[in-house]
């Protein structure tokens, strides 16, 4: 399998008045062609910042301080704006969380879609319109001709997210970064959108990074899962391995807190404590203060170890604990 994206040692820090926020602090992962990678973590764990770092859209006072991002073999971390602009929306595109907010309320759907084409290609209006219509059809929007003439407020949330997905696939990108694209939708629509995205990645061979805090979503969708905590990936492996036999105590906790039919009537597991303050991360393992298995060794930062077919940052990996 060929790698579309290789991220190594990525560090994105924000230099605020209160101190340095290490939003992303040494992240490594690879996404292969046609593969869906689930990037899971709670709010503030740095998953979205990882996505924006790849696109080079980190605003002041943040910047990529270290690491490499290789896209199709080319280094794009801190690449010149011109290079990044030609990649954005063309080779790597993005789907956002809130479909109510990501479409410009005053522009018609067709102008927003055609604009995405014109930004990267010189084609006639007719060709661009035809491609937009085709793209809307692909994401399962009925009578796309009429939808093209509509304004965003005339469409439902699910419909708008389909439009966003259509825009993301418009230029046949190699990679799509989906930043919690189903969080703002209700569950039935969520399932449809996931189905649609999955179908399209299979058809087009587009790789996808699916950022979410919902393990249940990626369990059925992703080929591989990376779990992020406080700016680092703490566990990374094939979806089945991670879901069935989580090793990192944090993953175990996350999985334990997902309601399932077997746990009916029982109290759900809860990870104690709060997300750490990103300005004052604990020494060593950032999860240690909330961890049940923490030991004296956890005072030092755990290195990446490769065990049981996955990469993990933990001194005390759990064994088979979460299944129960």
């Amino acid at each position, binding site marked *: 399998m060929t790698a579309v994206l290789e991220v190594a040692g990525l560090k994105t820090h924000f230099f605020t008045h209160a101190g340095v926020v290490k939003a992303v602090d040494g992240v490594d992962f690879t996404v292969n062609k046609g593969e869906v990678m689930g990037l899971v973590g709670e709010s503030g764990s740095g998953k979205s910042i990882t996505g924006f770092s790849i*696109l080079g*859209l980190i605003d*002041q006072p943040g910047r990529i301080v270290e690491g490499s991002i290789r896209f199709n073999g080319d280094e794009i971390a801190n690449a010149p704006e011109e290079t990044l*602009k*030609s*990649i*954005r*929306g*063309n080779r790597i*595109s*993005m789907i*956002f*969380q*809130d479909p109510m*907010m*990501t*479409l*410009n*309320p*005053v*522009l018609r759907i067709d102008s927003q879609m055609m*604009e*995405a084409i014109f*930004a*990267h290609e010189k084609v006639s209006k007719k060709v661009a319109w035809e491609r937009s219509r085709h793209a809307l059809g692909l994401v*399962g*929007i*009925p*009578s796309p001709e*009429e939808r093209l003439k509509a304004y965003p407020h005339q469409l*439902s949330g*699910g*419909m708008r997210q389909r439009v*966003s997905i259509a*825009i993301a696939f418009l230029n046949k990108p190699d990679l799509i970064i989906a930043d919690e694209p189903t969080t703002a939708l209700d569950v*039935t*629509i969520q*399932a*449809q959108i996931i*189905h649609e995205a999955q179908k399209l990645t299979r058809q087009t061979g587009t790789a996808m990074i699916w950022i979410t805090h919902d393990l249940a979503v990626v369990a059925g969708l992703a080929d591989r899962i990376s779990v992020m905590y406080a700016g680092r990936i703490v566990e990374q492996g094939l979806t089945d391995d991670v879901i069935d036999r989580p090793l990192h105590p944090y993953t175990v906790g996350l999985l334990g807190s997902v309601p399932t039919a077997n746990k009916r009537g029982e109290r759900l597991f809860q990870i104690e404590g709060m997300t750490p303050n990103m300005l004052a991360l604990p020494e060593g393992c950032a999860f240690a203060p909330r961890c049940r298995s923490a030991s004296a060794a956890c005072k030092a930062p755990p290195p990446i170890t490769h065990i049981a077919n996955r990469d993990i940052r933990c001194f005390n990996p759990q064994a088979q604990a979460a299944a129960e």
Partner: protein
Amino acid sequence: MTDTTLQSPAPAKVKVETPFQRFRAEFFESRIAATAFFVLVIIMALAILAPWITPQNPYDLAQVDVLDGRLPPGSEAFAGYTMWLGSDGAGRDLYSAILYGLRISISVGLASGVIALFVGMVVGLVAAYAGGRTEAVIMRVVDLQLSFPAALVALMLVAALGKGIDKIILALVVAQWAYYARTVRATALVERGKEYVEAAQCLGLSKTRVVFRHILPNCLAPLIVVGTVQTAHAVSLEATLSFLGVGLPQTEPSLGVLIANGFEYMLSGRYWISVFPGIALLLTVASINLVGDQLRDVLNPRMKK
């Protein structure tokens, strides 16, 4: 695809109210606003049609007879027509002079309003989008400008530049651009933080395109409101300058000049020379302001009941 039918209703063939229709209905909900709009339309029509509906061209000295000077309303002019609103000291038929004056006042107000809007809009957008030091410098200039009363700025400029329509317009633009810049910057800052701007950047669009095609159209509502109110302000500011004698020349009287001309006769009972142009000015400014107020109420979603 089976699931698509679940959530997408068949395109309705019912006639949908367009945003403009809704806007129109909401605007005319208020009787005061409707009246003001009606008055404004009449004033505009009178001003535009002035050469065809007045008995005299007050700018043509051949048609103005000094012997007709200071005649009370209803008198007959030497040329044979009735001066329904009387005449001023120079023998100008006041009805004609007021309509021609309205033309000048309104066109000066509109021209300066539009130019100031354009200048302020570009400056405000640049400030909001550039951020950092550029923004700080621009906004401090705006603050400095706004700390002087507009009338004072305009007065100083006209005193330095001299008389003439172009100079008046320039002075009004300088006095007013900052209001637009501040409004646009405030709105654009809010819009800039919205996700659609980020999404537009993710599409690889250029900065100018993001600013002018995505952010700007979303800032128009407050701009329209400020534009209306500032145009009314420009009209009265021009009248003020002309009244003080630094505005438009005597040969092409605007409303302010007419009021000033009649001022010396007020105490001798010849009220009409000042009062009628004054009423015309009052009606113009008040109707523009009322229309502006209603626009603000309709265009601002937070004011909706």
